[in-house]
């Protein structure tokens, strides 16, 4: 890591960093450092930068201060704290101890291995030179000048890299299939239509280090013989789009894109295509239809895109993370990459760790790491001392892994055996307060709304699934509903046209597999064991504990509570709207919820 100045201040401006006020912090540093009472010599040495996601989003805004190469990291930085950091640390040389990250921060990184994220949070995403200084574009230059496309394919095949978008197809093999096609016009598409709820891996990579994706595309295009590339990115990622645009422009200026790149006969152009936010457009044939200007609806496969893709030409579609891996694999060698992970799942994988976990954020781990290492070592355990219930992986196409399977290794095969998938990398941690039926309902609601409407099982089937789950969570479940759910899920899985429909029932099937008793409790006893389904709750005041303070009476928005002062109160359940206000407000734990 080369630091331009002796002092460098790097402020996390990933999505969470910005949400936590990163821009104001950066502005505060710039203002503070330009104050007239700071020695000019110091000002010259000092620079402040925005960088991509630093990972531990739960503690944003994170600020890294480098002084002569020594790194100090502050957490939860607010603009008001900047004055003291500058005065005591930058000028005075003594870090402000109480604002520094603690041991938990170190633990968060200990078991992580950063490949894709190696430079995310280090380089300024809007400055190509920062990327070049870390060795950027060297891999592309070396491949184009000294190696043949077949060498590149062989290298990627040997690394064992599998598509990080979800399906896990071998990247090298995909490139080889496209290479073998005799067609003249070929395309390479970067799929940045990240749409899983709770997933922000691709977004963080593009916002944090867009050049790694462009370099990956250059190498891929050279390997398959494509002269045109598209980045299909959702318009809901304005910052990623802006940074990608600026990165592409800089790469054109540097001669890394366009005609005769790196002064070789190779031509490669990249265009950005904005998606309008349809989840199904992440499916590759729908994505192609969308680029062609059609409604984003999947087409039957075969033909596969590598044979007949965009404009009926051979097309390679790779996910952002897959492409961002490429420069690092080339730079460090396929053997280095393959040394991480398991036999069939090589390398590392980025996950977006969210939900009821202490250290929410963006992590990169070697494939095959036990799930409990992610939850307890990296994630720091469950928030509020509650019990872990399950981990949901793979978003709406994935499933749940129950707490008793925490020794499970996180790789393609193991997760699939457990009824879930690696998917694109969403990882949502659920605790004892989360209702599994409700969670399944949430994902079905998502897939139903995002179904393109082309095939019957997905369009109508998910709607009927949703209605059934809705009924169950509202206490109107009927005997036989579980069997009906299973029949519907199997039917949708077997007969849907594309991946969206074929995987849509997974959240239901996997919760039925691991948490069947919760469904039964909802249907038979009309109870929600997690106490999350509002309609199934009853609130009652225990006369022995109630002091008659009247707090609940005041808090109740529906007038369901009556009682005289200093005498036990009573809830009328037919008026009660089950909002839980009385439960929250009672200081004597006299309100019971079940």
């Amino acid at each position, binding site marked *: 890591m080369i630091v331009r100045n002796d002092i460098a201040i790097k402020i996390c401006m990933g999505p969470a960093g910005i949400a936590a006020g990163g821009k104001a912090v950066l502005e505060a540093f710039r203002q503070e450092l330009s104050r007239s009472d700071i020695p000019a010599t110091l000002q010259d040495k000092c620079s402040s930068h925005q960088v991509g996601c630093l990972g531990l989003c739960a503690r944003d805004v994170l600020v890294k201060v480098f002084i002569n190469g020594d790194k100090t990291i502050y957490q939860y930085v607010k603009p008001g704290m900047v004055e003291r950091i500058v005065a005591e640390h930058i000028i005075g040389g003594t870090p402000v101890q109480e604002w520094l990250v603690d041991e938990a921060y170190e633990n968060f990184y200990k078991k992580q291995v950063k490949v894709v994220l190696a430079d995310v949070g280090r380089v300024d995403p809007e400055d190509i030179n920062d990327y070049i200084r870390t060795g950027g574009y060297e891999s592309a230059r070396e491949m184009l000048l000294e190696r043949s496309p077949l060498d590149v394919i062989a290298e990627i095949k040997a690394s064992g890299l599998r598509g990080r978008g979800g399906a896990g197809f071998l990247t090298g093999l995909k490139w080889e299939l496209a290479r073998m096609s005799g067609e003249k016009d070929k395309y390479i598409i970067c799929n940045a239509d990240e749409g899983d709820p709770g997933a922000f891996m691709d977004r963080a990579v593009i916002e944090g280090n867009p050049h790694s994706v462009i370099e990956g595309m250059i190498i891929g295009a050279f390997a398959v013989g494509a002269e045109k590339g598209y980045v299909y990115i959702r318009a809901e990622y304005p910052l990623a789009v802006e940074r990608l645009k600026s990165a592409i422009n800089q790469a054109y200026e540097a001669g890394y894109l366009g005609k005769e790149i790196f002064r070789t006969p190779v031509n490669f152009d990249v265009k950005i295509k904005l998606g309008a936010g*349809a989840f*199904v457009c992440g499916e590759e044939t729908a994505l192609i239809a969308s680029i062609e200007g059609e*409604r984003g*609806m999947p*087409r*039957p496969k*075969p033909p596969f895109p590598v044979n007949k893709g965009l404009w009926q030409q051979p097309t390679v579609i790779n996910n952002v993370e897959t492409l961002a891996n490429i420069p690092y694999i080339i730079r460090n060698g396929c053997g280095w990459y393959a040394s991480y992970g398991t036999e069939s799942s090589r390398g590392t994988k980025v996950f977006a760790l969210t939900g009821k976990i202490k250290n929410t954020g963006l992590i990169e781990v070697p494939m095959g790491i036990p799930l409990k290492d992610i939850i307890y070592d990296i994630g720091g355990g469950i928030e509020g001392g509650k019990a872990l219930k399950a981990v949901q992986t793979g978003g709406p196409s994935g499933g749940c892994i129950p707490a008793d399977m925490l020794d499970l290794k996180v790789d393609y095969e193991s997760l699939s055996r457990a009824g879930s998938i690696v998917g694109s990398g969403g990882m949502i941690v659920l605790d004892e307060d989360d209702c599994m039926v409700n969670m399944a309902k949430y994902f079905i609601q998502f897939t*139903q*709304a*995002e*179904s*393109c*409407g*082309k*095939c*019957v*099982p997905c*369009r*109508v*089937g*998910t*709607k*009927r699934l949703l*209605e059934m789950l809705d009924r169950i969570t509202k206490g109107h479940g009927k005997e036989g509903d579980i069997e009906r759910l299973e*029949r*519907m899920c199997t*039917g949708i899985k*077997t*007969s*849907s*046209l594309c991946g969206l429909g*074929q995987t849509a029932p997974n959240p239901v099937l996997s919760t039925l597999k691991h948490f069947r008793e919760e469904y039964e409790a909802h249907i038979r006893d009309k109870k929600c064991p997690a106490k999350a389904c509002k309609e199934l709750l009853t609130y009652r005041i225990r006369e022995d504990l109630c002091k008659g303070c009247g707090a609940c009476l005041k808090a109740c928005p529906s007038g369901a509570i009556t009682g005289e002062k200093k005498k036990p109160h009573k809830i009328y359940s037919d008026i009660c709207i089950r909002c839980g206000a009385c439960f929250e407000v009672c200081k004597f734990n006299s309100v019971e919820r079940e």
Partner: protein
Amino acid sequence: MQKISIDGKTIEAPRNTTILEAARMSGIYIPTLCHHPKLTPYGGCRLCIVEVKGIPKPVASCTTAVNDGMEIITFSPMLEDTRKLVLELLLSDHPNDCMTCEKAGSCPLQWLAYAYGVRGNEIGGERRVFAKKDGNPFIERELEKCILCGRCVNVCREIQGVEAIDFGYRGFNAKISTSYEDDLNCEFCGQCIAVCPTGALTGKLWARKGRPGETKEIETVCPYCGTGCNITVYVKNNEIARTSSREDSWNEGWLCVKGRFGYKFVNSPERLKKPLIRIAPKKDMENRGYGDTEKNFTHSSIHPFTVSSNFREASWDEALEFIAARLKEIKARYGPDAIAGLSSARCTNEENYLFQKLIRASVGTNNVDHCARL
């Protein structure tokens, strides 16, 4: 040729044939709703799924090409149960008002529901409700009955080249829509009606005029132009209930707005059935306000040519003799170039040929033209 086996029967099919086509060629029935032989395979209804040995999940036979050595199963308990589920799903979002539906009796959805024993209320749940607002004069769109098979969208794009309709919205709310959801404003060729497998698209003129089984089908040729499309006329009580065209006709079942909807003249009381000879001088007619015929066609309740005081009915012999005599008279007095002949696109090629022969050879002028050139 690719050698495949379907349900144990060995079949040879040309390369690039789909499994569905190969099965149909050898008389094996696979149910479908969205497939149409003249349109690009769509793969949306999922009824035509079959099992192929070596492929873990069933594939849609309409979009999967045959491959040498393929072993295909079209009928198994799993496939049948999945097909039944798909039909249950379709009918759970269908009005099921076959009693009054124009399509009843010729409806593939109804046939399949019958074959699989699906009544329509097995699953239950919300149904789509659409406000009917189509003010067009020809095409009745009942979107509640639509199963989104995409045939109408594809025929409009691939055969007619109009693209008047496409899919809109997502998920359960997906529907076939015009741009900005306006009233349908297209050529009204009605090809979409011809390919619709349900009662979602029918002719407005057809309403309650007669369904299959109560109508007599009569094969004829469209009278409108020299193309001569084959049409089938459905007649009930000596009145045309509707028209269509058979897919095995030379025009492949396609018609235009005239052929499909322009049959009202047949039973019109204003239809001319005998020649008329004018009795009142032309000037008189103009004085009576019939000069601007165009205006009167649309606004007057009295048709100019049925006013008995101006015209009288005549026999063909009398009319033709009258014409011949007048032509000769004009030719003798003013010369042949005072006469011009205008023929009609509604005549056959042979008739048009004879007409120009008459004008050129008998009358002796080249002043002959045809309405299609105007």
